[in-house]
Structures are given as C-alpha cells and as structure tokens.
C-alpha cells in the first residue's frame, strides 16, 4: 500500500517492559519500547515496511518508537509515530513488522502494546491518558471492544482516561 493513498485508519522508557506472545508456541517474551533517532534509520529497510518511517523520524513534530523484545533489541516488532498536541497525544501511525502481519504472524500483541505505551506517554505528559487516532472502518468495532476506544465521528476515535488506565495496567508491570 502506498502512503499517498489516504487510508484511515526523556522519560524512563527502559523500565516500561511488557510482552508479546509467540503464535506457535504461546511463549511470552518481555518487550521494551525505545525512541528511534536518525541514527536508527539504517535498521529500517524501506522494502519491509508499508509506511515511510524515515519521513516520520525526520519530522520534528513527531516522535517515533520501536517495540523489540528485551533479548533481541535489534529486531523491530513494530513501530509507532506520535505527536504531542499539548493537551493530548495524536497517534499518526502504527505498524507491525512484516512477520507480525497476516494469518502467519509470529507474535500477537504488538499493536496493543504500542497503544498502551502511547497512553502511558499521555499520562506522563499530564494529558490524563487521552490519545486520538483514525481507524479503518472495519476496525472501529474491534478497537471499541479491545482497546475500549471511543468512536468520535467518521473514522476518528480516541482513548480516554479510564480506558487508558485499563490498557496500561494490562501491559505495564508496576
């Protein structure tokens, strides 16, 4: 899918560990979310990603994060692009890595993990967990049921304080 096609859809991050689950073995692996910088661009091969993550990293209004397992910090499981809107966090992009897509995906839980992280950032910045984003039409119900997201209008959705707290408690060890 090309980016041009309009399809909706310094904190202590080292301590924010959570996990993803191997679809074949049901094994659970602890993960970590780390902010990406321009230096990390060499680890992101354009052909392996649907979105232009280099563009996101270069955009100074956005912050890009990667999810990896603790044991394999060089293998990116998913990417997240956020913008601080001063009173809430806006989630521009979320993408699971190529091997975490489709019916043969290797790990489950990558996107939920990243959304919970975005909510955590919203709390850390004093925005009470508010996170806004767009959803694909077919996924609105799914997000309402799994993320407890609220449908705002059209493809617009948001996560409010109670739902954000629920997500954080599901993913982040205290």
């Amino acid at each position, binding site marked *: 899918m090309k980016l041009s096609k309009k399809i*909706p859809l310094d904190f202590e991050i080292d301590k924010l560990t959570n*996990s993803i689950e191997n*679809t074949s073995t049901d094994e659970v692996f602890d993960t970590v979310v780390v902010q990406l910088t321009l230096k990390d661009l060499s680890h992101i091969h354009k052909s392996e990603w649907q979105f232009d993550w280099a563009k996101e990293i270069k955009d100074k209004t956005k912050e890009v994060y990667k999810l990896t397992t603790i044991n394999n910090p060089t293998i990116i499981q998913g990417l997240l692009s956020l913008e601080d809107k001063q009173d809430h966090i806006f*989630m521009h992009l*979320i993408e699971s890595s190529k091997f975490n897509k489709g019916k043969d995906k290797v790990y*489950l839980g990558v996107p*939920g993990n990243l959304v919970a992280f975005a909510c955590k950032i919203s709390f850390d910045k004093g925005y009470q967990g508010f996170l806004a984003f767009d959803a694909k039409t077919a996924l609105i119900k799914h997000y309402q049921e799994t993320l407890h997201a609220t449908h705002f209008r059209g493809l617009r959705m948001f996560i409010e304080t109670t739902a954000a707290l629920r997500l954080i408690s599901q993913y982040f060890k205290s």
Partner: protein
Amino acid sequence: MGLIKEPKNVDFTVQSEPWTEEELKDFRKLMNEIKVKNAKKKLRSSTTKKRVSA
C-alpha cells in the same frame, strides 16, 4: 489481565489523517467535559472514603 491479542486475520494498522480545526475544537470540548466528569467522580470517591474512615 492478559494481552490484547488481535485475531490472526486482523492486522491492526493505524494511519491517521490530520484532524480539522473544527474536529479538534469539538474533540477538545468533549475531552474537557470528560476530564471534569472524571475529576468530580474522583472528588466524590475521596469524600466518600473520608466519611467511611471518620
């Protein structure tokens, strides 16, 4: 509580378009209403707790 596991046939991908000024204005209004409501709930809850412990 367990992980939120997307179904195998579902790929959770978000690609947001910028929200219009009007959408942002309405969203901020709603967000503030929720924040006020939550603050009232919290206050009510803490008042109740104080009464119980008194």
